[in-house]
């Protein structure tokens, strides 16, 4: 039995490290001043990458576009999804399964196909009708994303509608409500939680979509496409900073939601009166989802403020100095070696002296060749090279 728990514990540990390890490492790299996102040679604790992230105009513009497109998609996909779900619930069984397949199809079609076909279709429509002003990244991305995002919304609504007691609507009608009143006062309030989650899901789906968007967005860019092109040109820790922000937002949302759900469950299950947590007025107030949210926001706000005030330049300068010293050391070593070599070569092959001297002279301004053994990773010479190049340039050689 002991061995079982040991194995179970080890398995759980392995499982969770596999699941969350990458996130932890990525979040850590956001605070390392190294130009390349890494944990291992820890240089300095810094919050500068957050500033760099917010200073990236292309990303911030993409974020703005994503918000605009996301709002548009939510505003259209949620009503379309609701209408689809309602239509399905009213149909006879045979027609329903057929329509269901048709409505769900866009989810199964590759996003690339949806994106290209959106451009082709709307290109022809707008050119044919003279509504050329519609042929822009915002409009095309909204209509392109809606084709499949509204199916997500519909799935959420179908799940909720299955639990709706249709006699509720009949009761409302019987009590004198018009069909419109029955819809507004009975069905819509019942669907409210589903409308909330559908809005959330459609917003996320719109926000993180790449396959379709990369085509439909034309010359504009959304946050996701801007991010993708940034990664293609080489990554830096400001992306880790973005990951930290996203993880934090997710955690705040999840914790607040958990507090809300637990409270609701305890209250509806009658456990609220029995639980000491809810009996004590102080802890009762503290576990209120609103308070939980406020506490989290305050703590994160405080940390962010403290982070923005943190200055890592002294440490960074020290690290830089260390690097320069190390470089100087390496140079001296190199010079000594060259001199030794020259002395040796002079004694054996006096002719080749000029050829070697020219080669070394050209290299000396940028990256010194013997530096390679100091950095083990293959990518690091370029990172180092950039750093050194920028710093060594103003310094007088020799």
């Amino acid at each position: 039995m002991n061995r079982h728990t040991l194995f179970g514990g080890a398995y759980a540990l392995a499982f969770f490290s596999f699941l969350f390890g990458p996130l932890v490492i990525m979040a850590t790299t956001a605070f390392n001043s190294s130009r390349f996102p890494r944990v291992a040679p820890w240089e300095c604790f810094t919050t500068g990458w957050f500033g760099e992230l917010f200073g990236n105009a292309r990303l911030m513009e993409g974020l703005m576009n994503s918000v605009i497109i996301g709002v548009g998609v939510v505003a259209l996909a949620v009503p379309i999804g609701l209408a689809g779900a309602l239509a399905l619930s009213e149909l006879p069984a045979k027609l329903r399964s057929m329509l269901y397949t048709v409505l769900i199809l866009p989810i199964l079609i590759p996003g690339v196909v949806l994106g290209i076909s959106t451009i082709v279709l709307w290109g022809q429509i707008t050119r044919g009708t003279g509504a050329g002003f519609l042929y822009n990244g915002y409009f095309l991305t909204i209509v392109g994303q809606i084709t499949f995002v509204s199916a997500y919304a519909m799935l959420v609504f179908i799940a909720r509608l299955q639990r709706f007691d249709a006699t509720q609507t009949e009761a409302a009608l019987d009590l004198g409500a018009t069909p419109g009143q029955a819809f507004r006062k009975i069905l819509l309030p019942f669907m409210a939680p589903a409308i909330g989650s559908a809005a959330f899901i459609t917003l996320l789906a719109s926000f993180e979509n790449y396959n379709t968007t990369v085509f439909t967005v034309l010359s504009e860019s959304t946050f996701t496409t801007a991010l993708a092109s940034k990664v293609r040109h080489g990554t830096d820790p400001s992306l880790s900073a973005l990951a930290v922000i996203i993880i934090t937002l997710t955690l705040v949302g999840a914790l607040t939601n958990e507090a809300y759900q637990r409270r609701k469950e305890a209250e509806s299950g009658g456990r609220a009166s029995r639980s000491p947590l809810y009996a004590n007025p102080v802890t009762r107030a503290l576990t209120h989802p609103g308070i939980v949210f406020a506490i989290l926001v305050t703590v994160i706000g405080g940390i962010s403020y403290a982070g923005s005030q943190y200055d890592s330049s002294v440490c960074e300068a020290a690290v830089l100095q260390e690097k320069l010293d190390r470089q100087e050391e390496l140079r001296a070593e190199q010079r000594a070696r060259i001199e030794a070599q020259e002395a040796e070569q002079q004694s054996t092959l006096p002719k080749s002296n000029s050829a070697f001297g020219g080669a070394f002279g050209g290299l000396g301004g940028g990256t010194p060749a013997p530096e390679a053994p100091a950095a083990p990773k293959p990518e690091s010479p370029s990172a180092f090279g950039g750093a050194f190049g920028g710093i060594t340039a103003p310094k007088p050689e020799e």
Partner: protein
Amino acid sequence: MPDQTPDRSVLLDHVSIRFGNFTAVDNANLKINSGEFFSFLGPSGCGKTTMLRCISGFSEPTEGKVLIGGKDMAGVGPNKRPTALIFQHLALFPLMSVAENIAFPLEVRGVSKKERRKKADELLDMIALPGIGDKKVSELSGGQKQRVAIARALAVEPDILLLDEPLSALDLKLRQHMRTELRAIQKQVGVTFIYITHDQGEALTMSDRVAVMSRGVIEQVGEPDRIYNRPRSAFVASFVGENNALQGVIKGQSGDLAALETPMGTFEARVGGGRKYKAGDEALLFVRPEQLIPGASENAFPATLTRQEFEGATNHVFAKAGDTELRISMVNAGLAGSLPGQGESLSLGFQPMNATILPVGHMASES
């Protein structure tokens, strides 16, 4: 209200309701009087709920007319009819408080919030649940929900209240209590109640009149005691209450009485429904368990006791006469009396007026 009582009658004028080839209600023709407590009684699938939905306006009759208060209701939607329906599962609105539920009919008619609350409190007083207006529906007990549903239906001030087996979800004690309560509320408000049930106990105890339905056909309409004592068809005789059925051949008829030859002997009994039989006609004789009396001299025949079920006040005794198993109800005589033992032979008999001869027809299936 008492002086100028509005016409709260319902007239079903040759109403048939069909779904494709299936006839749910077949030529129903009856009048439900103003202020009456009227029940439709029948097994599930007999068409009684379809009938109710037709009266409330959720479906239209395929043939015939429904008249409420003398007015033809063709094309009038459920929200425009002077009816209110209490659903089998009540269909209270779970997202609203009790008071909001009750005042919902007023809300959709544009009554102000203050007046709605006043009316809701009045109705809560009437159903003897004052002060629960702010509770959630989920916090109520089964009986309370029941009464709230009635209050909500009455808030419309309907002429007709339709009830679709509303007591079926309650436990026995509460169900019996609610029967009395429903009847009292009906007397108080003077509204016509149309009650749907498969529970004969409910139908017989509460109703002024009962319509027994089977396979879409109204088999018999009448006061509860007439339904029980004077069944007009084999279905009514077998569905309402317990009954022993003996099949046989008519030997002769004189007035209300006829003689029926069965494998157990020839018995004399009342003819149901004033029918006329010829000698040689096949017929069924129904005699109720409580009318089979040990040692009675009329229509006597020998039988053997097979088993008995003790149920407090009554003892259900099963006896075999020839190949026929009979059911006999005996009042518990207490410690002073003695019960016949198993395997004992005894003589049973019944009075001719307390048994009914009916034509052979479909019977209620045992379940």
